[in-house]
Structure formats: C-alpha cells, structure tokens
C-alpha cells in the first residue's frame, strides 16, 4: 500500500512539474501567448469560459458515448460471430483488416455527405473507429478457449451455445474489457475529429473556432478538457475491468469474497 501511495505521489508530482516547467519556460523565454499561452492563463480562460464550454463538453461526451455504445453492440455481435466459427474468422478477417486500416478521418466527409454536418457524423465516426479492436479481442478470446475443457464439456453433451455461454464468453471478458479501454478513447478521438471537421457544437468545434479567432488560450483550454475527459473515461473502464474480471489478474482483494 505504501508503495502504491509513493507511486501516486510521484505521478502527481510529474504532472505538476510538467506544468510548472511549462509556465517557467514561457516566462523565462518570453514566449508570446499567441504561440504558447502559459498554464495559468489557460486555467483562467478555462475558469471564465467554463459556462460557455459546458454544453460543448456534454455534446462531445454525448456523441462519444452513443457512438461507443453502438460500436460495442456491433463489435460484440461481429466478434462472437467471427470468433465462434473458424471459417467465418478466416473469411471475414481480410475485410475487417481492410476496414480497420482506413484512416478514420477519411470517412468523416462521407458521413457528412450522407447525414449533413452535426451530431450524426460525430456519433458514426465514434462508432466505426471503436468497432475493430472490440471485434478482434472478442474473436481472439473466444478462439482461445482451451480444447481440453471444450472436450470435457462436449463429453457431458453440452451444446455449442452452452459452451459459449458457460466458458467462451466468460473467458473472453478480460479481452473484452481490455478492448473497451482502448475503444472508449478511440471513440472520443473519433467524435472530436468529426466535430472539428463538420459540426457547430462540441469541444472539437470550439477549438476550431477559437483557433481561427486566435483565441489560443481557449484552444489549449479545449485540449486540457479533452485530456481530462480522456483520462476519466479510461479510468472508468479500467475500474470496471478490475471489478468484473479481477480473476484474470489474480488480485486477491477482489477475488476472495
């Protein structure tokens, strides 16, 4: 426990030190706040503009979470489909890799073309960007079911769905939650990306507008908000991961009930 606290203290100091260095360097080198505003300025902007920023934060979170949820649904179904059948796996894999290797910036214009600018393309971008890691992880987890165990269950006369339900899916949970951590951050990136290109709401749009108005400290305030939101979302899902799949990490505190 002591060790944990020390590590926490150090990472906090690292963050504080980073901003302190930034502040000091700006002052010492006399950097113009049009190029790089000082953290203290950014904080002030953040504080004064917060009432204006708040709806945009909600908007970005909304697009991210809706897109993410849709992505999870699609990802899980595709993953189960692909993971339970060797044939489906081999057949679908090239297509999946093809889709995943398309830079997601490239699909935003298409979504805008189809649905106009606004919330819809943001949600869709957040969705497509997070599907692939989920599919791959679910499929991998399912494929990793121990053959011996499957034999034991088959010998008992278990049906395919019983094996999937009792062994396949629980075994996949650690992979699934690991992929959720990646997916939620990706979704967030996707939503912001789409907002910067085609939306008049959301943090992405705020930053875009601010930069064209040379409100540099507002741009950085947006960045800080994005970083904080990203960390919070990530932390949320790693907490969930530990709660649900503690058995995979052999954490005694969680495992023993």
């Amino acid at each position, binding site marked *: 426990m002591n060790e944990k606290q020390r590590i926490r203290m150090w990472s906090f100091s690292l963050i504080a030190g980073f901003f302190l260095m930034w502040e000091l360097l700006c002052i010492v080198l006399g950097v113009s706040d049009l190029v790089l505003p000082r953290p203290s300025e950014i904080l002030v902007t953040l504080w004064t503009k917060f009432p204006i920023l708040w709806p945009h934060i909600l908007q970005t979170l909304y697009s991210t979470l809706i897109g993410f949820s849709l992505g999870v649904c699609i990802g899980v179904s595709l993953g189960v489909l692909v993971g339970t059948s060797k044939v489906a796996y081999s057949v679908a894999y090239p297509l999946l890799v093809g889709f995943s290797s398309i830079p997601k910036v490239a699909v935003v214009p298409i979504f805008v073309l189809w649905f106009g600018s606004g919330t819809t393309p943001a949600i869709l971008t957040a969705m497509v960007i997070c599907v692939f890691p989920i599919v791959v992880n679910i499929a991998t987890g399912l494929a990793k079911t121990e053959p*011996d165990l499957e034999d034991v*269950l088959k*010998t008992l006369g278990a049906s395919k769905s*019983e094996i999937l339900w009792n062994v396949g899916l629980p075994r996949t949970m650690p992979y699934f939650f690991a992929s959720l951590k990646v997916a939620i951050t990706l979704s967030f990136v996707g939503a912001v990306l789409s907002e910067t290109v085609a939306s008049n709401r959301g943090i992405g749009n705020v930053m875009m507008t601010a930069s064209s108005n040379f409100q540099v400290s507002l741009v950085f305030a947006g960045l800080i908000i994005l970083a904080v939101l990203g960390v919070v979302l990530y932390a949320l899902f790693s907490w969930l991961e530990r709660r649900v799949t503690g058995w995979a990490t052999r954490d005694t505190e969680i495992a023993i009930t």
Partner: protein
Amino acid sequence: MNILAHPADPADPVETVSPTAVPSAAATRIKAVELQQASVVFGTGDRAVTALSPTKLTLEQGDFVALVGPSGCGKSTILRLVTSLITPSSGAVLVGGRDAAIRHLRMGMAFQNPTMLPWLTIEQNVMMPLKIVKPFKNTFRQDRKGAFRDRVHTLLGQVGLKDFAGHFPWQLSGGMLQRANLCRALVHDPDLLLLDEPFGALDQFTREELWQILQDLYLDRKPTVLLVTHDLREAGFLAKRICVMSARPGRIISDEVVPLPQPRAIETIYSPEFVEMTQTLRALIAQVRT
C-alpha cells in the same frame, strides 16, 4: 455407501437400451464400451496417418480398464473415440450398446490439465456438469443452492477439499486442483468415467494419495472406468484389467486381468507379485516401442 445415488431418472441408460430386452438381462449383456475393429486414420492420400489400427476392446459395466503403452500409440485416441469427439474411420464404437455418437451413457472426463474455470470457485467449477447434464440441468436453478450444493460438498469432503469449496482455482495446489477435477468428472454420477493421464503432472506422493482417493470413489459408486496412463504402477494399483498398446499405429497387444483383490493398499505396489507384474508389462512395452 453411494451417497450420490442416481436421482429418479426416467431414461436410466441400462434399462432403456433395447425395448425388447428384459431390463435385468440387458444389464448383464450390454457392454459399457465396445470397440469393434475400430480404426482411426487422420488425413487422406499420401499424408494419411494411422493413429489406431483396427482395435477390439470391450469394457463390462463396472469394469476398470487401464490403457498403457508408449507415447503416441493412440491411447488418447481410444478415449476420444469412446467420447465421440472423433468418429472411427472404420469399424464401430458402441457405448452402452449404442453408437458412441448418441452419447447414450452419462460420461465424465478428466485430463492431466485440471482445466478449472478461473472465474468460478471450486464449488461452482465442480457443479458445472450439473448445469449441463440431464436430468440435473432441468432443476439446476432450484437445486444449486440446496441439493446440488450438498452433493458437491459431500464429494469435496470425500477428497479432502471440504474447506476449499469457496476458494478460487489459483489458490489451490496442483494436487488439490486434480482432486477437484476428479470431483467434477464424478459429480453427475457418470456411468462411464474417462481419465486421460489425470495424475501425470503430480509428484509421487500426491499421486499415490490420489490413487487411493480414486480407488475409494470408484469402489463407492462403481462406474465403468477407462484410464489412460503411462505409469505402470498406477495402472496396476487401480485397474482390474490392463491393456497394453503397441507403438503407432497402435493396437492392443495384451489384455490381462490384475490378479489382486480390491481395495488394494498402497503397500501392495511394493509387494513381489506386483513388482513382477509391472516388470512384465514394462518388458512388453520396451519391446513394442521400437
């Protein structure tokens, strides 16, 4: 005393084998397992590998047969035939008088790897078959906290794991996991128990301890057992009959009854006649290895 007697099971395998046969007569005639010149060939054409030459093997109900032989001789292939995980390339495999694919008899299986599910407690792991096998699965929801729980606990008590029911698999040693594995293979009162080198990964003392536990469990509920092992003493201590297989492509070259009454004490394995028996088997296997 059989604590885990069959619940009222309308489809009791022995009695429904053949509608024309008299149940009691059927019980004496129907073999638990019958391999009728069954062979297994993997692959086709030039790359065909014969894993098992046409083999004849019969297990009476309540029999305990050990299969020994050099590694890769098709011992496990026979188990996989009986459990219908693979189908014979020629010949037939009958279990309880019917094609093995029907899975007419209730089967339990244990491997060298305990394959406990890490997210379940030992109790939940052992209970797993009751969730899957009829007729238990029909009442699983009502009974898992009552009758089934007691059943699991009795069994865990018999193998000395009473205090570990609530533990997770990673908190147990290899020997303990293997005991839990045996419990899982037996909890649904199988007619046929298939063991594939179950004690292969354990140290000598733990192994001997588990032999005794297995012997007790066997004598308690008398399932038909087919044990694959490469430990001759294990075969001699536990089995009623020992079948020796030749190197690949495997076939059974010797089928002998162990002339020692059961239950056997662990000291038996150091007796002269036991040693002589294992020596003979050993010589036989050494011969066919090449």
